[in-house]
């Protein structure tokens, strides 16, 4: 099937040829090797073509970009979030004898403290190491925590008066308050916060505790914050849900603090300025409040689709399908006669009455006819069984011996790969493509021969099926060869050698 070969020597490439030198990083290489390891078919193809010199690495992977990209995304690990237990609520261990209280702070706890209490974070950044050492800082912090827990506001006030750094820990967290105010301002006014009966859980029986404000006294004298458990819990929950903003190794407290500060700054600068947010909110509000009936219809410009009556198409399909099925009863030509509707119905009714009157036949079917039918069926079955197998859904492939099947499938995937590269190289504009096509053509010739061999080596039982299976492959290869030859012929007929050095 291969036409005569013409002058085809690989043209020596000019130095300016387009051979991309690829600098692959080691991760890329590893990635590719991993892909090859995992998929044995890919590996076989790779071995056959890249190592066999038919395709280069870059060409091989050029069509598989999606595989490479996919994998790159998988390597990012998930970050572990904050623990939902309140670590920042450290419980000291008390030593009854010496009246000492010991707090233990791990880097994890410190990280959480910084995240939950921005005042402490700010204090740390400013005081350490300029005003006090880290150890002192934490000692003061723990003292403050202890005072909070004892809820002894007088002592707390006294100590705060003495030690101004301690006072920082005992005051209300202003930074937090500011943040909260900012967030409130940014709430979307179009959010529907209407509550209905379903949201009211306080008035359900046995549920909730009514807050009786009369019992609370505001200590106006001191500026000491009264932290309640619910405030702590809420703050902790909010921080946990926000997630871990940093990906830093928890080691040195200072680096953690700085990194946290940086990320907070980045966050706040990423938010649009107030004015812009206001604009957006106003736009959204106007959109939500507009009454659709009073607006002009928003019709997008589009081109209407008009499709012809599909009946015509299906009509012809019918004719085709019947032709394809072949008329086994060629003698029954569909001689169309015309009947009157009334007559037809009358006839049908008559037939039904006839059955009513005469009843059913006895015997239902004549024995000779039945015998003929059975014989016919049996013959038909035994003739088709051989060709088609028992199961209509069973494919020819499954019945071949495994080795042949694998060979054929491998040939098919290689042919597909080669053809993909072959057809994408046309039209040939550079010497690089020309050489590539030559290499591909050689490989295709080899596979062609291999296919012929496979066809011949198969047992005679399956020879017919195998040749039917192999036929589309051969056809595809033939089409490629034919195209190549016509291209060669055209180049040859153009006579003069081309500027990029094609051989005449």
């Amino acid at each position: 099937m291969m036409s005569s070969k013409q002058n085809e020597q690989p043209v020596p490439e000019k130095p300016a040829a387009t051979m991309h030198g690829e600098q692959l990083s080691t991760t890329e290489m590893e990635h590719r090797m991993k892909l090859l390891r995992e998929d044995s078919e890919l590996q076989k193809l790779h071995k056959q073509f890249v190592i066999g010199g038919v395709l280069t690495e870059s060409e091989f992977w050029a069509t598989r970009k999606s595989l490479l990209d996919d994998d790159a995304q998988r390597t990012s690990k998930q970050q572990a979030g904050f623990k939902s237990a309140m670590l920042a609520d450290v419980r000291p261990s008390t030593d009854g004898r010496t009246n000492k209280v010991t707090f233990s702070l791990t880097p994890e706890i410190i990280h959480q403290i910084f995240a939950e209490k921005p005042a402490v974070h700010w204090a740390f950044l400013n005081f350490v190491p300029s005003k006090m050492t880290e150890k002192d800082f934490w000692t003061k912090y723990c003292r403050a925590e202890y005072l909070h827990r004892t809820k002894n506001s007088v002592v707390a006030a006294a100590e705060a008066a003495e030690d101004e750094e301690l006072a920082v820990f005992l005051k209300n967290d202003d930074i937090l308050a500011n943040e909260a105010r900012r967030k409130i301002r940014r709430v979307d006014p179009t959010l529907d916060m209407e509550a209905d009966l379903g949201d009211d859980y306080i008035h359900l029986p046995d549920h909730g505790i009514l807050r009786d404000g009369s019992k609370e006294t505001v200590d106006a004298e001191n500026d000491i914050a009264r932290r309640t458990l619910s405030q702590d819990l809420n703050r902790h929950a909010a921080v946990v849900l926000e997630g871990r903003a940093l990906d830093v190794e928890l080691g040195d407290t200072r680096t953690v603090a700085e990194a946290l500060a940086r990320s907070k700054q980045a966050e706040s600068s990423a938010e649009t300025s107030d004015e812009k947010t206001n604009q957006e909110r106003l736009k959204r509000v106007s959109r939500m409040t507009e009454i659709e009936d009073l607006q002009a219809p928003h019709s997008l410009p589009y081109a209407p689709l008009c499709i012809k009556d599909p009946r015509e198409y299906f009509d012809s399909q019918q004719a085709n399908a019947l032709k394809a099925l072949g008329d086994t009863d060629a003698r029954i030509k569909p001689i169309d006669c015309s009947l009157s509707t009334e007559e037809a119905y009358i006839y049908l009714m008559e037939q039904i009455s006839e059955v009513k009157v005469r009843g059913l036949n006895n015997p239902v079917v004549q024995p000779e006819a039945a015998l003929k039918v059975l014989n016919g069926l049996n013959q038909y079955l035994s003739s088709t069984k051989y060709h088609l197998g028992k199961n209509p859904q069973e494919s020819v492939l499954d019945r071949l011996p495994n080795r042949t099947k694998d060979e054929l499938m491998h040939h098919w995937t290689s042919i597909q790969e080669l053809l993909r590269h072959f057809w994408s190289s046309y039209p040939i504009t550079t010497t690089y493509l020309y050489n590539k096509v030559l290499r591909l053509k050689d490989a295709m010739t080899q596979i062609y021969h291999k296919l012929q061999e496979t066809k011949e080596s198969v047992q005679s039982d399956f020879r017919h099926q195998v040749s039917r299976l192999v036929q589309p492959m051969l056809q595809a290869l033939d089409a490629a060869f034919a195209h190549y030859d016509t291209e060669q012929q055209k180049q040859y007929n153009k006579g003069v050698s081309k500027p990029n050095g094609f051989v005449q």
Partner: protein
Amino acid sequence: MAFQDTQKRGIGPGLDSNSHSRKENRLTPRLTPLPLPLPQSFLRLSPAMNSAPSKLYSDDVSLVVVLLDTNPFFWAAGAGGGNTSPHHPAATLPFAKFLNHVIPFLNSVLLLNQLNQVVLIATGVNSCGYIYDSAGGGSHGGNVPAVCSEILRRLEEFVAKDRRLGKGPDRVVVGGVSSLLSGSLSLALCYIQRVFRSGALHPQPRILCLQASPDGPEQYVAVMNAIFSAQRSMVPIDSCVIGVQHSAFLQQASYITGGVYLKPQQLDGLFQYLAAVFATDLQSRNFLQLPKPAGVDFRASCFCHKKTIDMGYVCSVCLSIFCKHHKKCSTCGSEFNQSPPDASATSDRKRKVSEV
């Protein structure tokens, strides 16, 4: 009498068959030439798709829904009204004789197993209707429901109603009138759905289509929808074609749902065909050899010349197929802005198009 184990019936789809088809999807492509996206026979959507997943049947109780074609034009054509060929099927097998084969077949299905059920649906030209349901209880109060007389009575009523509904012309060409196959398929599938929802213990349903009329191309989409839903519910559609020509719809239906398609050669032995091939229950079909046609042609034909092709051009707007390059799509009128290719690049372009 040995009763079936009624505990396990109606077992769901076998897990093996599902995993088998999934495995096939992942492993290897089928050996087909680069296929076109075929719009009208969607059966080739994924080349590695199995046509019908097989269920595990635990017993042989069956529910057979028989769709009986009562197209009066077909049946009357054999009566010698007009110049019909003596080989017309309705001449060898007039409707009365046809009923003589079908009714004993229904009886024999009921005899095969005490729990079997039979439903008869008539396919008319203007309407379809339920004729008989063996689970409906005897209407005459006797011990054995009088199947035959009830069927005949209801058939008569149905034909009369069908005739009343008819608004067509007074004279028609026989070859052009088709019965409402899609309607009766839908009726059958609805009944079967109800059976499915009646609980875990139900007989295994299948549909038997006794088709005499030619395929009506205007019903194409409806019939294909019915076929796909039958495939989805794993209800095999058997076809016994008594008409003049083969039926492409039913071939595809039987192929994709895992049923049996047969066009009997000898019509006076119809009962034997029905009893030997179509009375087999689904569990027994696993180890019985049943006739199947040589192959189903799923190829499309081009819109311009109506010839079957397997490689061509497809309009991206309406998916109509052409065998050679056109400037404008004839179905939807969209213009293609591709420059007409010269001869050398034609095969190249064809390749690119069909590789989509």
